């Protein structure tokens, strides 16, 4: 409706409407190059259109918006938002493939596995990879690492950061031979500085910290990932009241989900594995029970298959079930080196 009011030429207006852009808000999250491609116009024309649109949006009052409920978004706008979301790579191409590009922002991803499978390694890798600058396809953001178990070793994070910078330099050398200005000026120390590390020793501290994150994130808007390693540890002691535990956990999950959506960041929760006794046989399940398993958006299970480490998408609203092999090397998480690796679709 508002497109009619934009001071643009009739042909441009016609192209916008036939491409599906009927409201100003749909133009708010698209980049000029994408718009140029969709409308088949030059990029400068697209930039002009966007400038005009944002100008008129700024001067409009709120009751001109076409949403029925305050704060609601049309599905079309949400689709645009989703497509423009970036992912955090895990440094393993196979793993990124089954994840649809990497760990997604605005969602809570739970990763669980037996001890020694690489959960902490994956957590550190994500905290380092979120800092990859935009030029290299990363988010260029900072990370919050909440350590409840004491598994975080600074020297290992340093090793992974060093390897990440080396990989970026390699990429630089291959693709941008003429652009000298894209030299890597990052040092491993800079990467470590951009990880906000919190060490938690009890479940009350954990809840208090998650409550405090709201304020922290409003002051540090460039944080793009929160890693909690592990979310389970302090909740597996004797809670006399199990109902209290479930309430506390769901409250915590809700808060994290809100933080993810509000600040457009990714939340990665690392979980432990426990056994469920079913009819005299055992089954492995992620800890914290059935009600917790409903609270996360995505769930990835890490497991051993022969001599290889595998990741399996257990639950996801948009990804299909698949598993991929990965390995933990001195440089961090990488593709598995076995020759017969294959991504299995279930």
């Amino acid at each position, binding site marked *: 409706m508002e497109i009619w009011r934009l001071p643009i030429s009739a042909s441009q207006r016609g192209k916008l409407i036939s491409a599906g852009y009927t409201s100003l808000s749909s133009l708010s999250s698209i980049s000029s190059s994408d718009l140029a491609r969709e409308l088949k116009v030059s990029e400068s024309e697209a930039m002009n259109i966007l400038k005009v649109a944002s100008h008129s949006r700024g001067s409009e009052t709120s009751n001109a918006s076409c949403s029925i409920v305050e704060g609601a978004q049309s599905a079309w706008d949400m689709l645009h938002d989703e497509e423009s979301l970036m992912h955090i790579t895990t440094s393993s191409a196979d793993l990124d493939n089954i994840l649809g590009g990497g760990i997604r922002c605005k969602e809570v991803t739970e990763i669980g596995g*037996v*001890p*020694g499978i690489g959960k*902490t*390694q994956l957590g550190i890798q994500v905290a380092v990879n979120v800092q990859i600058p935009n030029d290299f396809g990363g988010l260029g953001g900072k990370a*919050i690492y909440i350590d409840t*178990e*004491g*598994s*975080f*070793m*600074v*020297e*290992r*994070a340093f090793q992974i950061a060093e390897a990440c910078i080396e990989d970026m330099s390699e990429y630089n050398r291959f693709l941008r031979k003429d652009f000298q200005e894209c030299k890597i000026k990052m040092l491993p*120390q800079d990467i*470590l*500085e951009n*990880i*906000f*590390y*919190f*060490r938690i*020793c*009890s479940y009350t501290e954990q809840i*208090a*910290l998650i409550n*405090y994150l709201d304020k*922290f994130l409003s002051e540090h808007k460039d944080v793009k990932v929160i890693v909690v390693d592990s979310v389970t*540890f*302090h909740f*597996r*002691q*004797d809670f006399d009241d199990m109902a209290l535990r479930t309430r506390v956990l769901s409250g915590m999950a809700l808060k994290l989900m809100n933080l993810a959506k509000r600040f457009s960041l990714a939340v990665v929760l690392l979980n*432990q*594995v*426990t*056994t469920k*006794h079913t009819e005299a*046989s*055992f089954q*492995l399940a992620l800890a914290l029970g059935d009600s917790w398993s409903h609270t996360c958006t995505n769930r990835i299970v890490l497991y*051993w298959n022969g*001599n290889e480490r595998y990741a399996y998408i257990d639950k996801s609203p948009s990804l299909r079930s698949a598993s991929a092999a990965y390995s933990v090397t*001195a440089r961090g998480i990488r593709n598995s080196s076995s020759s017969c690796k294959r991504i299995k679709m279930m």
Partner: protein
Amino acid sequence: MTPQSLLQLTSQKCTTGCPILDRLLYGGIPCDSITEIVAESGSGKTQICLQLSLHAQLPVSHGGLAASSLYLHTEFPFPFRRLHQLCLSFRSSNAHHFPVNDNPCDRIFVQSVHTADHLLEIMSKTDPFIENSKNQVPVRLIVIDSIAALFRSDFDNTPVELKRRSSLFFKISSKLKALAKRFNLAVLVTNQVVDLVGPNEGINGLRIGNLVCLHTSGRRVCPALGLAWANCVNSRLFLSRNEEVIREENEKSNGQSCDFVKKKMRKLYVVFAPHLPESSCEFEITREGLFGVER
């Protein structure tokens, strides 16, 4: 709540007293973390514990923690004589760090523990104990030898009891980690092994860590206390011992011949650790202590 600066957070390590083992462990046993040593009896767990308690007293410049240690033992008797023997050789090789009439054994505090609840009780008293020790030589190493003995008999095999047992694991581990963080301690815990019987091993056959299966003395074993306890420790090391038949060349008067000799082969494996790759090394136990062997 403020985040800690990672650049100032260097993890200190306590040397094991042997450069080969230190190289395998990237410096030694880390502080602010629980390291578990799993082995069958007679493999050298207590030897490593005693050796570490002594070497923790070395100054930081030489890889130690300049600290005294708290040794909680659950199996009787405490090896006083062996500690004394190790102490003598420790003194003679590190005489320049200590005054003449000094006895390193004075800086190892030994306490016996009987049950899991007793351990929890002791840990609540440990807080003020370590606080007070800051005035003399601070305590920076806690050894629990062994944690398995506390749990092997008290619990029935019913789901309720097993749940209570798991709950205790997390409680103890949580307290130990809180202590470790507060006073920057290294915590060393030893664990026993149980046999894996039959091809269908069930939950005990679940692979945890780098090794598909742990072998010692020709049997397949797995660490005691199960999956719940495995989630409570930060790093796990495995000591194996095997009798190997080795060909030895012997020069005799009537020319060369070879004998087949049975030798004890001892190996230390890294099962899982956040900072260590999959690795192993051979070691031997002598009068002077436990040392790695480079082949």
